[in-house]
Structures are given as structure tokens and as C-alpha cells.
């Protein structure tokens, strides 16, 4: 990533005290929101690398979408500040003796942002929409365990499960949608709701500003009105400017701080850093539906040619990973060794797979072995990684091309059409670190097409385990198998922090959703 000219460190408190060239620099970048109405003085302005592409919980697939959704929507249950399940839109629930039915009493007096009362019909609709094949919801897996939902009356919902559930409330965190805003349960991504969401949450989406920022205002009729009157999300794709904007008080929060900015922000007494790890890891995923990547030897050879440590060093601090968990995870298998860079072993595997190297290039049947990497534009530091990866692989006779896709193209090309060769991206997981959707043959996020009966069985075993040590053992075994099968080259996990100005008070950050308790934050 290109370094921006350094701005002088100034103990200033407003942009008006910056030098004229500095102000012009910021304004020229279009970062001061010249076209946007001024935010309220005690508004929380925060930056995302990439703005949410859609504000509809049925299709939430990125962290920025999840964070914004946390402000606008609510679920039947949520986490309290000690991360215990607590009722949100639910008031209470009764589990049947055989644990196959849950009768949920809904909170009364709740209304949608458009004033319509919240009822049981909305819960039934939401579950129906998530399950409807016509919706193709990215969140369908979250209700697969619910067999049926019925509105007993306006404030009572009966849920039926496919099998007995010990604590179904723990699984009722998905966001509820307003039935009256849709024509049926087959909801399209392009439904206007995507940019005109209506929720029951503490903030309502007021408008999209001309500069792409999103303004949310406090929902005054909420049962527990937020402490801040306004939240503004600003897309600041140039990470170099994000930290400067925070320091110059043009923002109150950065959701993710670049590692190279940590020291500078840590020294500023007007800024607090909050760990925000999200159990995330980077990966290269092969499309196993065709081409050279159907052969595990070719995939393993690629794993032996990629040097994750060298790719990681320029972009931040973190740990290399050998499987689909971060090293601190209880599921991480520390007995699995990294592939290590081993060109001779990679060559042996490629030759075994029918490739030969001539004039520096690997090929088979006249076709050179190449890799077309597709990466999302919103993945910070991806350009730097890809440039170095190209260099690593091209030195070893593998041709590499790169595409960076915007959010809409990524959804279409990778998620829906699965028209890609290799993707470079990152997954983030909540504290459950549930990788089922990524690696089960029927997983809704398994866009690589990976299929292994042994891994499916291990995922089922982990899902059904009632013994934590059994679950741990199953997922550690999964780690080992997925490492060996190499549907992905697992790269690293990065240290991740958010930053907030100290004028934002009573801050508690949810370790995954970030804004879960933002309604309690106040401004000094």
C-alpha cells in the first residue's frame, strides 16, 4: 500500500486549527463530507473500510453489514454485557417437556421505526424468509434447526424443532424483520428494503448522504432510548487517512486500526484502543469445481510454495495459522505443522500430478499452470499481499493474475455464480468459532465446493456433542484433515483493534458485533 505523505503530529482539537495545506489535503480527499449535512455535535462518527452494501439481515455477509445491522435491528435474544443470553424482543419463553417446542412471549409496546407495532407475525415471517429457497439468504443456516413457526396470538410465537434442543434461546439471536414491508417470504436482494431498512433497534437509518456516508438517528420510541442522538457511518477506503481523521477529531471511532497506526494512536491520550479480534483468519481458497485445483496434490504444492510469514510481515503483526481456527482457539490443533516453503516437494507433487517445468513455467498438456486470484476491494492491505504473492509464485513458475472486485461483483461472482479460480479473503467468527457453513459439503458459505465425508462427519459430531472435550477433539481432528486436504491455504490471523476518542463514554465493545451495547454509550 502506498504510504501517504505524513501529516505533522499536532496536539490540535479541531480541523480549523490545522494548517491550510493540511485542511486542503483532507478536503481534497473528499473525506470531510463536504456534501453531507453536518452531524450533530454529539454524534458518533465512525469509519469503515467499505460501506455496507446492503442493510438487510437476510443477506448480511460482511462485518461492516453486521455492525450497522446491530444498530438498526434486534433479535428475540441478545448478549448482555457478560455475554449471557438475555431477552431482547422476547420477554420470556417456555420449553416443552420433550424440548421440541418453545413458546415465546414477545415484548409488548415495541414498534417498528415506521410506527407499525411489532407482533408475532414478524417473527414467523422472518423465519419463513430465511428458510425460503427463493430468498437464498446467507443466513439460512441459522434457522435450519427450526421446523416450524406459528403465531399463536399477536404476542406469542410457537417454535417447533426438528430434534430436542437444550437451550434454544441461545440460537435465537438472528434479527427480526417487519413482515408488512415485504410482499412474501421470497425476498430478493434487490428489494428496496436494502437501502430503506426498518427495524426496531435503538437507531433508525435516516438517510444516505451524497458522500456515501450513512446517517442514523436515535429512535425516540425505543423502550431504552440511546444515549447518543446520532451515528454516522463514513466509508474511508484510504486507511492512511482513517487514523488522522480520528486524531483530528473528524471521527470518534475507527472499527479497525491499521497495525502501523497502533503506536501513534496508543500514545494519544485522547484516544482509547479496544481489542476487537473477531477470531479472523486470511486464506486463499481454491475453486474445487474444475481446473487444476480438483487435484489435492496441486493444492498441496501451492501450499508448499506460499510463504505466509513473508506475506504477513509488511502488513501487520499476527500469527500464521495451519487450519480454520486462530491459535488461541480451543479447537486449534497445535500438532499440525505448517507446510513450510518447500519448492522441491512442491515440484515432486506437481510432477506426480502430470506437470512439467520447462523454461521456468509449470504446464501440463500444453497448458501453463496459472492462478487467477480474486479478492474483495474491502480487504485491507490485500493489494500489498497479492503483489508479494505474485512475486513468490511467479518465481516458482506459477503465473498469477489478480482481480479486485467491488461488493456487488464479489457477491455475484464468488457467492452466487462461483465463477472464480482462487479467492483471497478473510473470515471472522464469533466466540463459537463455528466453521460448519464454510466446510460442510452443504454449507451455505462453502463456495469453494469442498466436500469430504470425513469432515462432514466431524462437523456433525461437533454439532451434536454434549461433552466439550469430545467437541474439542472432533474439531482438532477437522483442523488436521482440512489442513491436509488443502481446499484452502490458511494464511494468518492479524492483531485487531478498534479505537475511540475518550469523549465517548461508557463504552463496552461486543467482541464480534461491536455495537451491541452502543445504546448505552454517551458523549462527554
Amino acid at each position, binding site marked *: 500500500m502506498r504510504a501517504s505523505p505524513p501529516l505533522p503530529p499536532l*496536539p490540535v482539537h479541531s480541523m480549523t486549527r490545522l494548517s491550510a495545506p493540511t485542511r486542503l489535503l483532507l478536503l481534497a480527499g473528499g473525506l470531510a463530507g463536504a456534501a453531507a449535512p453536518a452531524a450533530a455535535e454529539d454524534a458518533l462518527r465512525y469509519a469503515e473500510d467499505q460501506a455496507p452494501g446492503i442493510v438487510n439481515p437476510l443477506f448480511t455477509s460482511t462485518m461492516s453489514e453486521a455492525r450497522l445491522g446491530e444498530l438498526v435491528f434486534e433479535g428475540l435474544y441478545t448478549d448482555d454485557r*457478560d455475554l449471557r443470553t438475555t431477552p431482547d424482543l422476547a420477554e420470556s419463553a417456555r420449553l416443552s417437556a420433550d424440548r421440541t417446542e418453545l413458546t415465546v412471549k414477545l415484548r409488548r409496546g415495541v414498534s417498528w421505526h415506521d410506527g407499525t407495532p411489532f407482533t408475532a407475525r414478524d417473527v414467523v415471517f422472518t423465519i419463513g424468509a430465511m428458510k425460503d429457497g427463493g430468498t437464498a439468504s446467507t443466513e439460512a443456516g441459522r434457522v435450519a434447526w427450526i421446523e416450524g413457526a406459528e403465531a399463536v396470538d399477536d404476542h406469542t410465537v410457537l417454535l417447533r424443532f426438528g430434534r430436542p434442543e437444550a437451550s434454544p434461546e441461545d440460537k435465537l439471536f438472528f434479527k427480526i424483520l417487519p413482515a408488512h414491508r415485504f410482499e412474501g417470504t421470497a425476498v430478493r436482494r434487490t428489494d428496496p428494503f436494502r437501502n430503506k431498512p426498518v427495524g426496531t433497534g435503538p437507531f433508525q437509518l435516516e438517510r444516505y448522504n451524497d458522500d456515501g456516508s450513512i446517517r442514523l438517528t436515535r429512535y425516540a420510541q425505543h423502550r431504552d432510548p440511546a444515549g447518543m442522538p446520532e451515528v454516522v457511518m463514513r466509508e474511508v477506503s484510504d486507511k492512511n487517512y482513517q487514523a488522522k481523521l480520528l486524531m483530528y477529531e473528524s471521527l470518534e471511532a475507527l472499527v479497525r486500526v491499521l497495525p502501523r497506526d497502533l503506536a501513534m494512536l496508543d500514545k494519544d491520550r485522547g484516544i482509547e484502543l479496544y481489542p476487537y479480534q473477531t477470531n479472523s483468519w486470511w486464506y486463499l481458497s481454491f475453486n474445487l469445481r474444475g481446473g487444476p485445483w480438483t487435484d489435492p496434490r496441486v493444492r498441496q504444492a501451492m501450499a508448499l510454495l506460499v510463504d505466509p510469514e513473508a506475506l504477513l510481515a509488511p502488513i501487520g503483526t499476527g500469527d500464521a495459522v495451519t487450519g480454520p481456527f486462530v491459535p488461541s482457539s480451543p479447537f486449534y490443533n497445535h500438532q499440525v505443522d505448517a507446510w513450510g516453503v518447500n519448492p522441491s516437494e512442491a515440484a515432486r507433487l506437481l510432477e506426480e500430478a502430470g506437470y512439467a517445468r520447462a523454461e521456468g513455467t509449470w504446464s501440463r498438456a500444453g497448458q501453463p499452470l496459472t492462478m487467477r486470484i480474486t479478492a*474483495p476491494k474491502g480487504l485491507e492491505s490485500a493489494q500489498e499481499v497479492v503483489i508479494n504473492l505474485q512475486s513468490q509464485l511467479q518465481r516458482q513458475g506459477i503465473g498469477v493474475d489478480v482481480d479486485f472486485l467491488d461488493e456487488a461483483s464479489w457477491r455475484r461472482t464468488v457467492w452466487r455464480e462461483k465463477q472464480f479460480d482462487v479467492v483471497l479473503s478473510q473470515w471472522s467468527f464469533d466466540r463459537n468459532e463455528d466453521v460448519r457453513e464454510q466446510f460442510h459439503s452443504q454449507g451455505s458459505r462453502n463456495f469453494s465446493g469442498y466436500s469430504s465425508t470425513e469432515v462432514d462427519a466431524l462437523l456433525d459430531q461437533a454439532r451434536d*456433542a454434549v461433552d466439550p472435550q469430545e467437541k474439542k477433539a472432533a474439531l482438532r481432528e477437522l483442523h488436521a484433515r482440512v489442513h491436509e486436504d488443502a481446499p484452502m491455504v490458511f494464511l494468518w490471523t492479524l492483531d485487531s483493534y478498534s479505537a475511540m476518542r475518550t469523549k465517548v463514554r461508557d463504552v463496552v465493545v461486543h467482541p464480534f458485533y461491536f455495537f451491541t451495547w452502543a445504546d448505552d454509550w454517551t458523549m462527554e
Partner: protein
Amino acid sequence: MPARRAILAGGGLLALLSACGSDPAPSGDGSPAGVADAAAAALPAGWIGGVVAAPDRFAAVVEGADREAWVALHGGDLHAATEAADAVLRARAWEERAQLHTDLAHLSSWTWQTLADDWIAQDPALGEGPLPLLAALAVADAGQADAARRRASAFPPPRQQLVEALLVPVVRDGGAPPPPPGGVAGATIDGKGCIAAHLDLRSGRIDRLPAPCDAGAALSLPGERSFQDPLIQGALAFQARTAARAARGGGTVTEQLSEGAPLPHLLFGPWWSIDDLRAALAGDLSLSAPGPSLAALDLPEVGAQDDPQAALERARDLDAALDAWAAGQRDSASEEGRALLDHLRLVEQLRARTLVRWSRQALRQDRPRQALAWLQLAHDADDSRAVGPVNRPSLFALLAEARARTGRSREALDALAPVVAAYPQTRGLAETLGDLVVLQNMGRQGDSKEL
């Protein structure tokens, strides 16, 4: 920053210091300047002011045969620091290790209790196995006698005796170890003999745990389930305290303080001045009494409620005063003095150690949210995963406990990871905490997102 270690590692200390540039100072703009300056003026020079004003005093202590050990102590590498030839340095390193393992024993106690209670609630049959006993042993290992006895009160006599045996005061000064009450039949529960070895260690029969017990690995218990050793942290703390006492020739810190110059007792430590160290040794320090030096800052009280915002306000006032004090030192110091102050991050280090001390007391007084607030402030995010001058091992241990006790048990594993890397005997505690994390999230719906 590698230059910091190079400063102390090479010859010609002062020449090396003058060759390096300075790290930028904190902006210190978090509170009114006048108030901060007044507070800073109330601070005595302390040992930091002393070495900044006279860097040759610093060199006189650290240069010499134990230069590498001083580098290690500065950087939080307690393994290397305990190899020092100098008795004071060696004792301090062992005492810091003892504190680390004591802190880990508290985390272990909380983890085992929570695991036992939650797991048995889910699967009552586990109450018939070794799990309740192991939890009680972990509580005893942390020195929480009342809680350990409460847990053991429902046990059959042999198991009660086992718990009680751990609570017997350690024999010192060559006295004969007391006979084990009733033979402590419960000690044979572990096929490797590690439980019995722990008892032998605490009663003074042996000096060190034998292999394989010293590795803190899983116990060999009846049945198929694997449980980790709940007593390893207390044992390591015990061994470290014994080693510290030996390094001090069997004497006390107070006795040694009166014998020689104070700087070796204070350098890179958590005490601003010799008066603060003496006050700590006399047991005068509590959360409301920060020691005579910092007491001059008149920091706001945090109150009896576990209010993290109050904790932040107290820390910010501390920061404002320390920033102003450091700025004053920098203005009047020589080039060598400034380099000492900035390259070795002496004020940041002492600040972090002060916040860690506050956090420890907050945890012991059942205020984990305040502890968490202070520990997050103390933690150096720029090198977040490594033990270092600011991120000392106890910071990670206490951060793990604070996170675990505020519902963030998964994040507690993140905090524990650097300690496990440096002290492999802590792997068992990470495994047990991992079991708890998995148990707490069983049946939950996981969520994942891109980017």
C-alpha cells in the same frame, strides 16, 4: 523496538544511548495542562528522576557481568533474569515469577470452579468423579482457604484431608514437616503421583517437583476423561518464592534494603521510590492508598461499585500527571538522560506496572470490570502478543482473569496465549479454560462474516 535491547547489550552504554533517536512522547492532551503540571510538581524525583539526572548511576548498576540479566528483567524475560549472578536481581526476578504464578493460580481457581459448577449442572454424573475434587484443589492452590473448605465440606474424609493438606502452612527454616493428616489417602488418586508430589513440595519434603509433574501435564486419573493438573501454578509460585528467599540468603527484602543502595531494588520495578517499596513491604498499600509518591497526585477514588468509567478517570489523571512529569524531565535532562527515559520507556513501564497493581487489587476485591479497564490501558497494543517491558507476564495473566470474569472467557484465551508461549507449564490451564469456553458455547448458533 530492538534498539532498546541493543542499548543495554553493547559496550559503551552511554555512547550507544546518544546514537539513538527518541520515540515521540505521549501527546498528554487528555486533561487541563495546569492541573497536570501541578500534580506532576508534587511527584518526587523517584528512581526514574534519579537515573535521568545522573545516567552514570544507571550504568553503574546495569553494566557488568549481569548486563544480560538486567536486559532480561527490563524486557520481562524472567527466565533469563533468574540466571543473574547478582542476588538482588535474581531475587527480584524470582519474586516476579512467584507473583505471575500466584496470579495464574487465581485464574485457575476461577476456571476450575466455573467449569465444575457449569459442567456438573449439565451432567450431574460428573459430580461423582474427580471433577469436584480437582476444583477444590485449584481453589486451595490459590490460597482461598474458606472457599476450598466450603467445597470440600461435602467430600468423604480422605478427599477433605487432601484439600486440607494443601492449606497447611509451609514449613520453613529447616523445621520438620508435619505428618500428613491421616496419611492423605486421597493423594493417590493420580496415577503419576503428581498430587502426592505437590503435597511433598508444600510440606517441604522436596525442593522441586519431579518429572513429569513439573511440566504441569494432564493427570493420570481413573476413567477416560482427561483433566489437567490444578496445582501446578501454586507449585511454581512456591518454588519461585523459595528460590527468591534463597537468593536473599534467607533474609527479607526489608533487611536487604537497609544494607545497600536502593537503585538495584527499584530499577524497572513497580515502585516509584524507596519509600513506596517500604510502604508496600509494610503492607500499607491498598487500592485507596497508592503509596506515598502517587498519593501526592490526589487521584480520584473509584468507589465501591465496579464502575469502569471511574477507573478510566483515575487512570487518565495518572496519565496526565505522568506525562507532565516526564515532559519536565525531558526538558531538563541531558541527551543521555532523555535517551534513557524514552528508549527504555521507563515511565510507560512504571505506569503499566502501577495499572497492573491496581488491577490485581481490583480483582481480589471483586471488581473485574475496573480491572479490565486498567489492564486494557496498560497493555501495549503495538506489540500486543509478546511479553515485553510494558506487557509483563502478569499483565497477561490478570487480563485473562479479568476477561474471564466479565464473560469474555474466549478472549481470556487470547490474553493467556503469550504466557503459555513463555511458560509451557501453563498449557494445562489453557486447556482447562478451553474446556470451559467450549462448554459455555455448546448449543449456541455460531456466526461468521467475511472481512
